[in-house]
């Protein structure tokens, strides 16, 4: 088994773990973390695929870099929404 295959399998398992966490919860914050785990799995797939060539594919790296920042933005917004939800008296 090669390096690429190994990390691809890890990414698939990671995605599943994240998905399970997203469903299980129970806290909203943990669901957001789980969503981030799934995102990390997708990034891992892309980075692993970029490592197939020598040198590693910088085009894919740039896309993942963009994705990272977008993921942080989305996380920040989601956390702001959660904070608002929790502060509303129900």
């Amino acid at each position, binding site marked *: 088994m090669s390096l690429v295959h190994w990390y691809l399998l890890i990414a698939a398992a990671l995605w599943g773990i994240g998905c399970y966490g997203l469903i299980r919860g129970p806290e909203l914050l943990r669901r957001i973390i789980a969503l981030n785990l799934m995102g990390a799995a997708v990034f891992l797939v892309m980075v*692993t695929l970029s490592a*197939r060539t020598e040198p590693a594919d910088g085009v894919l790296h740039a896309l993942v870099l963009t994705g990272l920042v977008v993921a942080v933005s989305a996380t920040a917004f989601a956390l702001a929404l959660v904070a608002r939800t929790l502060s509303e008296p129900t």
Partner: protein
Amino acid sequence: MSGDFWFDALLGVLLLVLALATILARQLAAAVMLYVVFGLMLALAWARLGAADLALAEAAIGAGLTGALLFSALARQPKSITPPVRISRMELLPALVLCIAMSAVLGWTLWQLPLQPAHSQLPAALEQLGSSGTEHLVTAVLLNFRAWDTLLELLVLLLALLGSRLVAAPEPAALQHWPLARQWSIRLLPLLVLVAFFVLWRGATAPGGAFQAGALLAAALVVLRLNGQLPALRFDMWWVRALILAGVLAFLLAGLLSVWLNWQPEQAVQWLRWPLPLAKGLILLIELCATLAIGLTLTLLVVGERKELTA
């Protein structure tokens, strides 16, 4: 060879264990901490896979700033409304089966991928690297070949900040300031600023660039702000607003400039295509503005617009 093999095997298993522990940790605080550790290990995996840029970015943004975001969200959670929710095993069984099945399908599909990419953008990109104004491929892709993406990404960051401002509940800041922490953050500031600009400058020739530098700046600002050493930053201060908008504005102006310089009658408009003599300068200018904007935006996203502390 076998040493490398064991390292990858261990790292992969560690990643999975950390992810599982994050999901299953009983306390939310433990989950957040484990997630930060997971991010650092992921950075290690990316360094292993030859993605030094991403390892830097993941350590700074993915682990560091996301961790700070999650911790500040954790501090905001009122303790009373997080009762221990009891989840029954039986209810979760379908979800578990579903996730395992999807993982298996995903893994099987990924396994089928050929080891040699059928068509790669890499040769074309490497060919054009000489005319991009920077010597580092990732920087060239981000700020020249696919500059559109980066512009939109800065817009997404801005939108996240504006959205958070709209929905965020005003919060009382009840923080203690330890003298030791204050001393340390002041000592750390020059070093962090130095490293941030070094990373930015290095981005032209080697791994590094605006996002990593911006994240480092944000880390310095967040620490200062949490220690009460920086006056409250609010979006309605003119200089904060100007700096936050600087990234997108510099990008747009450079784009318009490129349209003007590339203008030839009866040809398609060339938007965001830098003429070669100006390319390096333009890219550096955009990166500088973007770094400041990213740093300040991330800072505001993490610490929010807390009221001024009264010590």
